[in-house]
């Protein structure tokens, strides 16, 4: 009995820090469009984000094609975004994208760095992307802020952690 109790204590001690570490590693993610874009014209609600990234909503209200961009599947920001917005890691979405390919719909364009996301979004008509909020610059504007717990905010949160 005593041994089992001791085992539970040790196991909990090993698991709990890793859980808190996982949350600590998460960042605030900014969902961005070009700074040239009038945000009000997009009429985008946070609930539509998953439709856009599942590629079930393909057009903005003005009839411009939505061009979502992803970071590569191993990127920590991509994984955090995918789990919060799409409900699972990129690996769990393979079957879905194979099915979409069969129906002529390709997954969002994927790039290897946040700088590439910023360039793609700022230079591509109809593009939308996401980056670590600390890496925002004047080329883009943020529509939403995805918090480490998964909450999506419309107003800018404190970015004090970026100053560290």
């Amino acid at each position, binding site marked *: 009995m005593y041994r089992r109790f001791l085992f539970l204590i040790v196991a909990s001690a090993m698991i709990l820090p890793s859980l808190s570490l996982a949350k600590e590693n998460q960042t605030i993610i900014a969902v961005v469009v070009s700074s040239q874009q009038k945000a009000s014209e997009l009429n985008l609600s946070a*609930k539509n984000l998953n439709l856009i990234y599942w590629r079930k909503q*393909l057009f903005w209200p003005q009839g411009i094609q939505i061009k979502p961009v992803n970071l590569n599947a191993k990127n920590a920001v991509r994984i955090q975004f995918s789990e919060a917005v799409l409900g699972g890691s990129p690996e769990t979405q393979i079957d879905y994208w194979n099915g979409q390919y069969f*129906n*002529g*719909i390709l997954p969002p364009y994927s790039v290897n760095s946040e700088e590439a996301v910023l360039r793609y979004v700022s230079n591509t008509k109809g593009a939308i992307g996401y980056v670590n909020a600390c890496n925002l610059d004047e080329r883009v504007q943020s529509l939403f802020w995805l918090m480490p717990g998964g909450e999506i905010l419309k107003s800018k949160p404190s970015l004090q952690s970026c100053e560290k």
Partner: protein
Amino acid sequence: MKKFIIIFTSLASLLCLCKHVFADDTPSWLDGFNIGGYSSAGLTLERDQEAQAALNEVSLLVTWNGDSRLSFFGELELENPLSWNDERQFHDQESRFDLERLYLDYNITEKVNFRGGRFLTPNSRWNLLHAPPLVWTSTRPLATSRLFPEGTNGVMVFGATPFMNGAFEYKIFAELLEDQQQDGDELAFEHVKGARFSYKNQSDIGISILSFREKGIDNSYRMLGLDFITHIKQVEVSGEFFQRFDIRNKDGGSGAYLQSAVPLKPIGFNNWYWITRVETLQRPDEATAERWLVGATWRIKPTQLLKFEFTGGSGDQPESPRGFLTSFALFF
């Protein structure tokens, strides 16, 4: 003629795939083209029959998305380009081209799109995703091919909207033109119209209603379909159920299947899945057909599957032979 088609298709593919060597800021309409496809080949050892091997199909998928609300999709399939059996050795006598899908989509608003052309009848999950690299087994559940038309020539209105952290999708469609060509065992239908509503979240569920006339038995039917796919601790469980009613609201046939795919990683077989399926089909004036299937499928890559399965049950159904089947399928 065939050589000409192959050469023409190859040239068209090359033209579309090759990009300009120099940078060009103005996108050409050719830039909107994407070409891909899938293929499968297999071996069938049917009970009391000779062994057969075949390259089952080579399908070409062509999409075009220009910088407008209009888009295009087409699927041209070369069925059974090459077969082998003991008697005839290698032959291409069953080879033929089939235009599986060809349609234009037009975006009306964010949530409303219009489709016109030939499309897969959207009343069954399996029917919408039937390509061999997308399904765990070489054979298709009987209920998904013997109760309703697999394709429809007509119009569709479709769209999606967010709902409770998931996506609610709708498809409403109607046939405008009957199939002009019937394949060997294919059932013939007309006056097809219906709707499908589905919800995508952690699990996908769908409900469909359909009305049509089956030419062979000269009767009109209405059909209700239900389908789902979910994951329970890494195990994929999926199923579909269909019930047809004739014009007097009497039973007009039914069918169902339930399938599971269990990952074998815990016992050391990474990317292998154990597949189990049970199915049933009841058509008017025909004996009930039942099938059970056990097998193993290796996902070599996300786009490649190697399948082994053993099928048993009652009743002869050409589309679901009883015995051992193996096949390899890939997207390209």
